[in-house]
């Protein structure tokens, strides 16, 4: 590291010929980035200390089960009965995803009207809708599902609503930002010539943002597939549920059949969404949207969803008693100590999982584009699809076999899942990067490693770091997913309170989750500005 003193003394002799002004300029320019680097290092060291690093991590005793799981890869269950079961579970997961994302888009569109400056201005309405939407966004789908189960039982509506509520909130935010960032001149011109807000919006704003909205909607659908799979784990059915059952009964062959189905479903949705987002053909987009519209009634029919159960007498009475018992929020039986400790575990888990996922994701993304070998590239991409198609709690279950209980199984489970997500994003970023600086360095004889440090890394690093920070915000929320399977943190605490039917303590812990999510969002936003 170069000198960080600011007393104007000549810097250390090992840097020859440097002048005082240039070293000062270096310091000024580096400050924000350097601070970010120091903060990141400190966070990692703290995370490791919190998680504990000693010989009590690896559980060698579980190695035989762990390796049996991987060996079953070549021996998946292909019996007719099980294939039919897998098919049914796949369709169930798909129907949850379709209905959940459609409902989230409806909610998002309505919410966006309240959030957009075009409609709401920046008055009281805007402020209150904004404040209100923070809460559903901060709580992960799986927590929504756990809460909804208390009122609705194991109804398929639980899965659909658990997806639609948080997704609807984030869609509202994104749609509103899209409206507000669009060129406002056409809108104002129409308003000036007497059109009302809705007319001016429909003719002046919507045409120019339609592509963005459609592309985001498909991205959401892609995420909904993964969420629908995770939700199964808590018992609402579908592939996640079957995976959980097969895991608990140690039928590894079945697991691989289910994983294959998940990969096909996830991969198919991603391929479709990528095509729609990159395609310029209106026709292809329309055909895909048409297909999805057909899927809506089919999904309703398949999942047997009946919205009337939302206002059935049973639901109303359960909701009332749930409402009475959840307010006012309070601490659990072990008081502040437990809540604070679980919160700290949650933060540590998110930091470690993000760092691990980003490092591995970058390594795989770089390997997947290495010179020529398309087979290697294909295998790595398949591997990335595998890691993100399988829900994080399933990975956590797997790693519990070889890691002693604590937060490490949760960290590794979350990291493995997010390697797939980040690896794909990183690979896209690197593919889209300007390759001229790298090519120019190659032409004057730079080695691949040198080209990486002087060409590719500087041009892509800000984007890669920003993606990692965005992902950190998601991972903080996802820690509860591995928490509910026993990996510690707030998720585990909430699950314990739920099991004890201590709903007021559940609300207390949820409050802590919202506060943590908001604080870390703000931290991540600050870090991202430092990158610019």
């Amino acid at each position, binding site marked *: *590291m*170069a000198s960080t003193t600011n007393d104007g003394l000549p810097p250390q002799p*090992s*840097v*020859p*010929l*440097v*002048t005082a*002004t*240039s070293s000062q*300029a*270096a310091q000024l*320019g580096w400050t924000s980035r350097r601070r970010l680097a120091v903060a990141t290092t400190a966070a990692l060291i703290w995370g490791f200390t919190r998680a504990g690093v000693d010989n009590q991590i690896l559980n060698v005793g579980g190695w035989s089960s762990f390796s049996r799981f991987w060996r079953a890869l070549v021996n998946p269950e292909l019996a007719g009965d099980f294939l039919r079961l897998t098919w049914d579970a796949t369709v169930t997961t798909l129907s949850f995803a379709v209905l959940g994302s459609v409902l989230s888009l409806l909610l998002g569109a309505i919410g966006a009207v309240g959030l957009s400056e075009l409609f709401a201005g920046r008055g009281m309405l805007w402020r209150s809708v904004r404040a209100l939407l923070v809460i559903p966004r901060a709580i992960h789908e799986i927590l929504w599902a756990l809460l909804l189960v208390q009122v609705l039982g194991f109804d398929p509506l639980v899965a659909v609503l658990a997806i639609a509520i948080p997704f609807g909130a984030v869609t509202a935010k994104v749609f509103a930002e899209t409206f507000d960032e669009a060129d406002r001149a056409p809108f104002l011109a129409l308003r000036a010539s007497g059109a009302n807000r809705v007319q001016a919006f429909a003719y002046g704003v919507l045409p120019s943002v339609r592509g963005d909205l459609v592309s985001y909607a498909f991205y959401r659908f892609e995420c909904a597939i993964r969420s629908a799979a995770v939700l199964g784990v808590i018992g609402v059915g579908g592939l996640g549920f079957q995976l959980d059952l097969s895991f608990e009964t140690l039928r590894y062959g079945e697991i691989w059949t289910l994983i294959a189905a998940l990969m096909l479903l996830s991969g198919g949705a991603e391929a479709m969404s990528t095509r729609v987002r990159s395609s310029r053909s209106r026709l292809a987009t329309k055909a895909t949207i048409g297909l999805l519209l057909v899927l809506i009634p089919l999904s309703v029919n398949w999942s047997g969803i009946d919205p009337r159960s939302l206002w059935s007498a049973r639901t109303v009475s359960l909701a009332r008693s749930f409402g009475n018992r959840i307010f006012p929020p309070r601490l659990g039986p072990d008081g502040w100590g437990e809540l604070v400790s679980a919160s700290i575990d949650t933060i540590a888990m998110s930091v470690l999982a993000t760092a691990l996922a980003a490092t591995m994701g970058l390594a795989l993304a770089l390997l997947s584009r290495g010179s020529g070998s398309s087979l290697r590239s294909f295998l790595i991409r398949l591997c990335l699809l595998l890691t993100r198609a399988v829900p994080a709690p399933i990975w956590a279950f797997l790693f519990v076999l070889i890691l002693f209980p604590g937060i490490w199984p949760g960290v590794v489970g979350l990291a493995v899942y997010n390697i797939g997500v980040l690896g794909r994003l990183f690979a896209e970023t690197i593919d889209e990067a300007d390759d*001229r*600086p790298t*090519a*120019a*360095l*190659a*032409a*004057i*004889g*730079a*080695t691949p*490693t*040198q080209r990486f*440090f*002087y*060409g590719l890394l*500087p*041009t892509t*690093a*800000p984007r890669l770091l920003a993606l990692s920070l965005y992902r950190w915000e998601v991972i903080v929320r996802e820690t509860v997913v591995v928490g509910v399977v026993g990996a510690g943190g707030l998720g585990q605490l909430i699950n314990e309170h739920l099991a004890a039917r201590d709903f007021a303590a559940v609300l207390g812990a949820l409050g802590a989750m919202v506060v943590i999510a908001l604080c870390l969002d703000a931290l991540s936003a600050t870090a991202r500005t430092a990158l610019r």
Partner: protein
Amino acid sequence: MTPPLAVELREVSVQFGSITALNAVSIQVPAGQKVALVGSSGAGKSSLLRAVAGQVEISAGSVHALGEQIAELRPRTARAVRARIGLIAQSLDLALPLRVIHNVNAGQLGCWSSFGAFRSLVRPATGPAEQVLEQVGLKDRLWARTDELSGGERQRVAIARVLLQVPELILADEPTASVDPKLADDMMALLCRGDHALLVSAHNPQLARRHVDRLLAIRNGTVVFDVAASDIDDGDLLGFYDQ
């Protein structure tokens, strides 16, 4: 004895799909000679430079740079040859988020180990970089981020990188395209100073003529004339563009 050749093209053709960028071009540039390529945009100047640098695949003929066919060499040997060739590309090819000093020092990558390159990012030697930046008038921007620089300043950084490299052959594609005329004159003088051979495509042939030894005019992928700079005047050049 004939002097060794810095560049030799024999019947070189370059094809981009159905477009012929170079059509059976043969030229020889002796070591140390300064040559300007003139011709309207799309004539094939950039393709010729990129063919010499080994950045495009040639569809026929052979290219020798500093006596070697780079495309035929093993990576290690090719690297040693490439380290002796300096490049200033039209798009500049600088890593914009890097500081100026690192982009200038990158000129030495061909001679550095990977570790040395990495170490220099953390603790760069500033002396040599400062010296060449002073020559292009950018000494005070040593620590600036390259994306904070204007187009003309970036071009001077690219020139500084090549000056630091001290190559035997410089390939420059419109290196003075976005600087003012006075500065362009200085830059051109700078590029022509030294023992290296120079192949430069020029958007301003009158300017180039004052500094180089020889002019090669290219039209539709073929060389249409090849003269000593002293044998032609600005009027002849204008006549060429009018055709």
